């Protein structure tokens, strides 16, 4: 069952540019330019794109805080803007650079207030909160005012706040921005566990591709307001012929002219050879024959490489 359906989604903004000493000219800029999106219940989708590509604008249209200039969109069966309040009960939103917590109050008080605002039965609320407390390790700072929390602690609070009413869809706009490694891992681990249960659909925008690799099977890449890729990470690698790298270190400097199908020598510096390969097996058997092999390592294709190639090509 599709929980998000968008067809030809557009958002245009009018910008005024200087056209003389006083004169300003109006220019229409399409931030989102005909996005089609269909997301099934339980999917975890990474929504990627360079700065200014239209990611946050799309998310705002899907959550009902921004009116599309064109196209159709349904989220949980609702048209987001006119039915925003009804939709708000069915979705959770985390903006990495915005806070939905009450700044002056202890974190626990924010959760209690949200229970009233979303009219969640006390037992249901307690159950969800207990789970978040366990998984996100909240107990140490439940009574700390939000203004005194570290960024990592606050983000764990934001995630909990977005989930306490049991949303069907969780929108995450750069949830790991500015977090240290430990906090990032905590957030990713939590989201991965949430995703495994399969009853919460997640849309994640981020610039941290490790988030995507860890969490999302499907990625949608947007650039200049248009979808330039919609599929699995593997499909993206296939499309750009991303290849694994074989790094071979020899005891002595070595020259080679290995010619195998699907193997390309990328660099040769003294005792180290680096190959880009489609298949590892044939190359390794060749390498063992040409010299005294000291060390061998295989590096999986980097998602950063393929994404940057995609951004550049679009």
């Amino acid at each position, binding site marked *: 069952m599709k929980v998000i359906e968008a067809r030809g989604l557009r*958002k245009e*903004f*009018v910008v005024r540019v200087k056209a003389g000493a006083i004169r300003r000219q109006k220019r229409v800029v399409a931030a989102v330019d005909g996005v089609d999106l269909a997301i099934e219940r339980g999917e975890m989708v990474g929504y990627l794109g360079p700065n200014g590509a239209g990611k946050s*604008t799309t998310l*705002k249209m899907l*959550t*009902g*805080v*921004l*009116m599309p200039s064109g196209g159709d969109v349904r989220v949980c069966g609702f048209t987001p*803007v*006119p*039915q*925003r*309040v*009804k939709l*708000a*009960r069915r*979705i959770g*939103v985390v*903006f990495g*650079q*915005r*806070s*939905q917590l*009450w700044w*002056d*109050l202890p974190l626990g*008080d924010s959760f*209690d*207030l949200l229970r*009233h*605002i*979303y*009219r969640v039965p006390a037992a249901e609320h307690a159950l969800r909160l207990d789970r978040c407390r366990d998984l996100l390790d909240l107990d140490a700072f439940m009574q700390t*005012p939000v203004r005194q929390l570290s960024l990592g602690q606050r983000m764990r609070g934001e995630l909990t706040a977005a989930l306490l009413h049991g949303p069907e869809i969780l929108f995450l706009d750069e949830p790991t921005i500015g977090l240290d490694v430990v906090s990032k891992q905590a957030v990713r681990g939590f989201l991965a566990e949430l995703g495994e249960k399969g009853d919460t659909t997640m849309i994640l925008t981020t610039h941290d591709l490790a988030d995507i690799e860890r969490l999302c099977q499907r990625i949608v890449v947007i650039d200049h307001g248009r979808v330039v890729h919609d599929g699995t990470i593997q499909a993206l690698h296939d499309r750009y012929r991303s290849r694994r790298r074989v790094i071979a270190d020899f005891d002595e400097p070595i020259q080679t002219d290995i010619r195998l199908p699907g193997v390309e020598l990328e660099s040769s510096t003294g005792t180290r050879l680096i190959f880009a390969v489609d298949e590892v097996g044939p190359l390794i058997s060749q390498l063992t024959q040409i010299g005294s092999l000291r060390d061998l390592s295989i590096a999986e294709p980097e998602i950063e490489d393929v994404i940057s190639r995609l951004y550049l090509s679009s």
Partner: protein
Amino acid sequence: MGLVTATTDRVTIRNFAEFASLIGAIAASGFRRFWTYRQATVAALATNTMFGFLRTYVMLAMAALTPVVAGYTGPQLAAYVWTGQGLLGVVMLWGYADLADRIRSGDVVTDLLRPIHPVLNYLAVDLGRAAHGMIFRFLPPVAVGVIVFDMYLPQDLSTYPLFAISVLLAVIVCFACRYLVNASAFWLLDHRGVVMVWLFVSGLFGGLYFPIRFLPQWAALLIWLGTPGPSMLQAPMDIFVERDPFRVQLAIVGVQVFWAVLMLWACHVVQRRAERKMVIQGG
């Protein structure tokens, strides 16, 4: 406009208890929020009390010239000053920037993602803050006034509940005015100019600098009926000092009800326009 403005659930008899519990919970959060800033409360209290002394001596100097000034006796003027100094922290005439700060930071967008009308949400927080103000900002200066000066206290028991109702209405009217001042940031971003005008006009029309009744009758009537100013400060003060007979006190509360309804409606309209701006222009 209706197309882009989401509506919240209507309050019915069936869900009234749930609604009251929601407002109570948000108001309690407003109370707790201000309870955390105890040093700031003490500092504000000290300032209010100091200015209470200054203003009382000025008023008493006037009262020394003539026993009744614009319908107020000396002790009534003292009560007017001290209740006014106390109510300043209850209605929170100045220093409110919650909404404007959220507009500037962009956090206001999360207000739209909650299933509650933003005006109601902010009002409920403000009611909790006012309850805190009533205990910690109103009672201490009034106690100082009673102890140090020959200050008038209501003689008629019915004045007390009427005063409580009038304070509640004053808080609502003042909140609505502050909300509108803050909401100007939706269009201006930097709303300091509007705040400067508000600082001057609210004190003047609210009857803080001097009772509006000091003005010629036509001007006083114009300000009472034509502006929300007296309804957010002078009304409860006049009721407390029992300057007028009971039926006039009731009329004063009636005027406050009128302004409370009108100003909340204005907040609702402005909020809808602001949402329209945000939602369509992405402001």
